[in-house]
């Protein structure tokens, strides 16, 4: 976005001028200068976190499952308690839901008695699929990297739920004025006041800690190096998954057993837009097709008109459009 007139603005301006007329309005020389600006790619396959990117590091081997983070999250975000399972006594959500932005889940193996806790919330991807898909920019990647939702722009299409590989965004099915409920890194509530998110502030054991992404990544790698083979695959989940996330996981059991999906290292936004971003650059693709179609339609139109006039003269029946 460093150029004074970015591709996005150009796209908007051209659409605003009216779809197909755009091709005619765009001078031929503009086609040649596309991409000459040396602008950085909008969706690189492997995005690089900005220097000030924040993160959370969750170490499953440290978490005791006390769930102190959950009521703190509810309080910070003004969420109700989910008491449907506990008969109205205490907060007992079944998973991330329209009432729960943050949850501690238990993984337990029936045979080996192996168990582990995992904290689920938005992963705050470096290149979030939900932000790429959101039609009117209701979901935004803010500074520091928090992914937030804006009620005044959302049309409720739920594309974010389809796009998110971690199945994080939740829709209020029971609300006439439904909202998308997802962890926003306590962006408005706490980050803006230089406070850390409610969950990391509440964690008594240090299972989940808050900091700069680079620092936490280094710390996670130190923990792996200190006790080799303690951690699953000796790696940090979230360092490269889906292009990298701003929530990092360490675990002694398989990440998939904890319910974290097995993902490639390429950003999903890159995968989804690599072809269309070329075709739709300056709307050149549609403009080109419109030009070719226009040429043939014009020629065939005149031929058709001549023929229909002759047909009318011959038979007395007019041509219908």
């Amino acid at each position, binding site marked *: 976005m460093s150029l004074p007139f970015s591709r996005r603005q150009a796209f908007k301006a051209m659409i605003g001028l009216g779809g197909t007329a755009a091709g005619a309005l765009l001078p031929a020389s503009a086609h040649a200068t596309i991409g000459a600006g040396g602008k950085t790619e909008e969706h690189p396959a492997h995005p690089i976190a900005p220097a000030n990117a924040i993160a959370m590091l969750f170490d499953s081997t440290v978490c005791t499952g006390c769930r102190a983070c959950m009521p703190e999250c509810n309080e910070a975000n003004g969420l109700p308690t989910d008491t449907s399972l506990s008969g109205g006594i205490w907060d007992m959500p079944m998973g991330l839901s329209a009432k729960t932005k943050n949850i501690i889940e238990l993984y337990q193996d029936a045979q080996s008695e192996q168990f582990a806790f995992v904290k689920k919330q938005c992963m705050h991807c470096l290149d979030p699929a939900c932000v790429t898909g*959101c039609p009117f920019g209701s979901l935004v990647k803010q500074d520091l990297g928090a992914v937030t939702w804006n009620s005044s722009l959302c049309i*409720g299409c739920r594309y974010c739920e389809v796009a998110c590989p971690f199945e994080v965004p*939740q829709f209020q099915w029971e609300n006439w004025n439904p909202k998308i409920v997802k962890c926003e890194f306590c962006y408005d509530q706490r980050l803006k006041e230089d406070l850390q998110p409610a969950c990391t502030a509440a964690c008594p054991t240090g299972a989940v800690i808050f900091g700069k992404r680079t620092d936490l990544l280094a710390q996670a790698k130190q923990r792996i190096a200190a006790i080799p083979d303690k951690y699953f695959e000796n790696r940090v989940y979230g360092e490269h998954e889906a292009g990298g996330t701003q929530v990092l996981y360490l675990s002694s059991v398989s990440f998939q057993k904890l319910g974290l999906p097995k993902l490639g290292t390429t950003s999903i936004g890159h995968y989804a837009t690599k072809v269309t971003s070329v075709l739709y650059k300056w709307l050149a693709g549609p403009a080109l097709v419109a030009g070719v179609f226009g040429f043939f339609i014009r020629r065939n139109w005149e031929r058709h008109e001549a023929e229909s006039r002759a047909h009318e003269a011959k038979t007395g029946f*007019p041509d219908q459009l």
Partner: protein
Amino acid sequence: MKVSELSTDTRGTTLINHWQCGVPVTRGPVLTPLLLLLAGIAAIGLGMAVLRFFSPLGPFSAMNDVYAWGIWKTFNVMTLTALGSGPLALGIAAWVFNRQKLHVVMRTALVSGFLFYSTGLIALGFDVGRPWNFYSALMPWRWNSESAMLEISICMPLYCAVFLSFEVLPLILERFYYIGSERSRALLCRIAPILRKAYPFVIIGAYVIPLMHQSSLGGLLLLAGTKINPLWQSPVMPLLYLIAAVFCGLGFTIFLLMIVCLRYARNLDAAVLAELANLLSGVCLVFIAVRIGDLIWRQQLPAAFAFDKMSLLFLFESSMILVPAVVLRSRRIRETPRALLNMSAVACLGGMLYRFIPTSIAYTPLRSTAYFPSAPELVMAAGYIALGSVLFVLAVNYFAVLPGEASKWDHTFRPFGWPRKAADPPIASSLPSTVIQERVI
């Protein structure tokens, strides 16, 4: 005379060529029990849709946070607008590739396409959770130009409200010309040349815009990534969705023409239908070639022939497209009405399967939650389809939509009659007929 002899347009020159221009249905009752039934379903569906607007989505649908898109999006929009792509497929064939024969069936394709799109858009309107925020569509600075969803939410209403409406306008104006007053006739005579002037320019948009949004429907699913089975999840999905739309549009136009001509006892036109069938078979072959090429390129061919659930689904879907593609290569079969009807229906089903499966059956997110549409969801989906069907029946009865050989017809509005046992009197003798002599639209 000379021009018409030299031209490639051979309308009306052979015995089997029965279709010369659009002719309204002038005989038989309009209000049949079937139409009443469809109207009832449409009324119930739309009534529930209105109720839904005053209620949250929860009680009306079985959608959940794992399957956030139900059949309103995946069937009424993603699948049925493929069938409604007839105006795109036929229009490009007729106007860009100069297939002159197809002009006569354009109106049927246009009306059906318009109804598929408009009912799909109604479905979308009641599906989204916060429709009041849609005014952002008019504010380009709010657009997220990377989003396939934006492309669809802008282009689909634009296409339906501007381009398809413009293409449908002549047949409505033509009707008003014959029943209108002298003043309205004078006005329409002034409008007609303007329409004719604008026509070749507007139809460029009418073909480019659906090319964009029909491919974007496939582009939508790219972001779903690993949630969709790798047999379907592919970077060429936008292209395949577009090709599927083209052959579904062709196939459905053949199917619809034959069914409606059977219903209203019209003669078929072997030349036009064979031309459509030829195109249908060609586009289906292109689809299969791209599909197989893509699977080879992504090294998914072993998975395609693993004969597990997904593999069988893939093979079923592909054979539904391959069979009509191969069978319709034969000229004899293209000119056999029964085979043509069956094959076009099979091709439509194959294309619909391809457009529906990745959004539903092959959409397997991590969390184990099931989705099956609830009763209100099904009733509303059926209501939208019934609404389109009712409007189509009314359109063929009151406007010159269906192709026919008669060049005369009764221009007064026909009575909205109940079914009668007595045979209808022949048109020519009892009803005043007017031969169109002026060039209208």
